[in-house]
């Protein structure tokens, strides 16, 4: 890996973290964001590392409602994402979707979806379209550990397996689905095994280590492109915050969060690599942090100053034009 790439990944991960921290404040302190707000803090390496491995011209992305990280990693403007969280007309989907439903056709980012597991079927369809057209694209389909227990998951993996579809199933195993730990909800807590049941090659990856995330994704995408059918990556990661705002995470054993944050944090992990193996300087990293802070400030200003959607637009887009 070259240093420039790693610095760019560092920038993206810091951007996501600062974005999430600011969103949290805008929700809890200022009341400017409403509804659900599922933060991505702790999981940054998964979105950034996997998305770095895709071909932006050809590959598709689809994910669940915990989607801010993916939206920023594909390169959506922080201002437009923040405006969406505030329900503004300048938001990435015009204020119609909110936090859970970010999307961008241009980026082949087909959106965040709120019904657990449902979008695995859509992602399977996107891979089907690619196979059908023979255009060589691959679908990266993200979902949580909890989603592996719903029928959608099993039907999608099975069909993708039967038809050899070019899809990488990326399970972001952050240990919990709401308050339910993996081993309380999944008869087999080894989630990669579930893919093996459908004859899909599956790997368990350290989702806090962006270099490993990137390499594994690259291999998986490559296999898809070569016609080897669906691939499965279980990214072992951790959600630092509650499921959504208002969840005080009382179901976590004491010390669990601290352990992950202190020993495994994805940003600190990359920082260490940059400082120790790539001779990056503290000043270099601080400069990046400063640029990101400015970007976040500008994003919030932009969102604050943006107009609400005009009332007469309520009925637009119920059907395609």
């Amino acid at each position, binding site marked *: 890996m070259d240093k420039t790439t790693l610095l760019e990944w560092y920038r993206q991960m810091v951007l996501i973290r600062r974005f999430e921290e600011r969103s949290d404040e805008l929700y809890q302190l200022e009341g400017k964001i*409403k*509804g*659900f707000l599922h933060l991505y803090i702790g999981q940054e390496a998964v979105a950034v590392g996997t998305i770095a491995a895709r071909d932006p011209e050809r590959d598709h992305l689809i994910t669940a409602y915990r989607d801010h990280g993916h939206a920023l990693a594909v390169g959506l403007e922080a201002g437009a994402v923040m405006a969406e969280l505030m*329900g*503004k007309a300048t938001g990435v989907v015009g*204020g*119609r*979707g*909110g*936090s*859970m*439903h970010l999307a961008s056709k241009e980026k082949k980012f087909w959106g965040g*979806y*709120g*019904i*657990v*597991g*449902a979008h695995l079927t859509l992602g399977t369809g996107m891979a089907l379209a690619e196979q059908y057209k023979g255009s060589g694209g691959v679908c990266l389909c993200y979902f949580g550990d*909890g*989603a592996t*227990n*719903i*029928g*959608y998951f099993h039907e999608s993996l099975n069909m993708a397996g039967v038809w050899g579809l070019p899809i990488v199933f990326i399970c972001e195993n952050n240990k919990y*689905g*709401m*308050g*339910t730990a993996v081993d*309380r*909800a*999944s008869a087999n807590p080894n989630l990669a095994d579930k893919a093996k049941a459908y004859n899909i090659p599956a790997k368990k990856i350290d989702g806090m280590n962006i270099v490993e995330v990137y390499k594994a994704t690259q291999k998986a995408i490559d296999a898809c492109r070569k016609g080897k059918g669906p691939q499965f990556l279980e990214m072992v990661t951790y959600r630092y915050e509650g499921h959504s705002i208002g969840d005080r995470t009382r*179901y976590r054993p004491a010390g669990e969060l601290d352990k992950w944050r202190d020993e495994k944090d994805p940003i600190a992990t990359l920082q260490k690599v940059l400082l120790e193996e790539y001779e990056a300087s503290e000043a270099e990293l601080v400069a990046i942090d400063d640029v990101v802070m400015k970007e976040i400030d500008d994003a919030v200003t932009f969102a604050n100053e943006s107009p*609400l*959607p005009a*009332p007469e*637009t*309520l*009925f637009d887009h*119920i059907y395609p034009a």
Partner: protein
Amino acid sequence: MARLTLREAITEALREEMQRDENVFIMGEEVGAWGGTYAVTKGFLEEFGERRVRDTPISEMVIAGAAVGAAMAGTRPVAEFMTINFAFVAFDAIVNHAAKVSYMFNGQFDCPVVFRAPGGGGKQLGATHSHTPDVIFAHFPGLKVVCPATPYDAKGLLKAAIRDNGPVLFIEPVPLYTSPKVRGDVPDEDYIVPIGEADIKRVGKDVTIITYGEGLHVSLDAAETLAKEGVQAEVVDLRTLQPLDMSLALASFKKTFKAVVVEFGHQTYGIGAEVVAQLQEQAFDYLDAPIKRVAQYDVPAPYSGELEKSALPDAKKVVTAVKEIL
């Protein structure tokens, strides 16, 4: 007598039914350790234990289906959908199995299952999480569909639902759960509110407002405003959508000759459509004016707050509708 919120009344009904009948148990996502997403079953795990308060995986299909099977096989499950939006995932178990097994097998099988489903919009949760799809479920004979709007009704109807030998979908309007305005008296002693009976919530002579759930409170607000202008609205709370009791609505309409139907679901093919059809069929000679509907506009729920609100019924829209036919 205690003054309870709607949510407290539901909690009490569940607790008392579980204490009364050892065959009643609860299953659903986050109902146990978390205490229920809306805290309806807070403390239940400690009180009743894991056998009777069962956290499930995120698996609506089997939550509903297993509840149907367990009900057929002699228990009385109360299965909770975290919200009614996720009942769509379980639609087949609800309408094809819960609603059919009694009839299809010639009355051999009881199916005493209750599906609890918090519902309603207006909370900026976006298009897939803001449904009021009550009418869809009410379309199927064999499934009783109940939606209380007051703590008294909520407790009595939930008890009736749990004691019913057939399947009941019990819809709980989330916006009413803790609303101080909705707080009301609930007797200490055991009682039920029979499923399939409407109720007059306000007496009046000039116009009949027929509604249920969240619509009741919007309608009562509208009635207050109208009263200040000398118009006395009678407000009928349907309480049960299937089987539908039209007797009170009809009697009221025959007195006022004018009606408005208020519901939070979408207007097209809504509860209002059915109510209007029955009114004109059974009281054609009493029609003095077109019967109006106030409902959610036919548009998915947008996230943005003002936009979302603009699509939902409110007291002002009800007042306007009444004035149009006076």
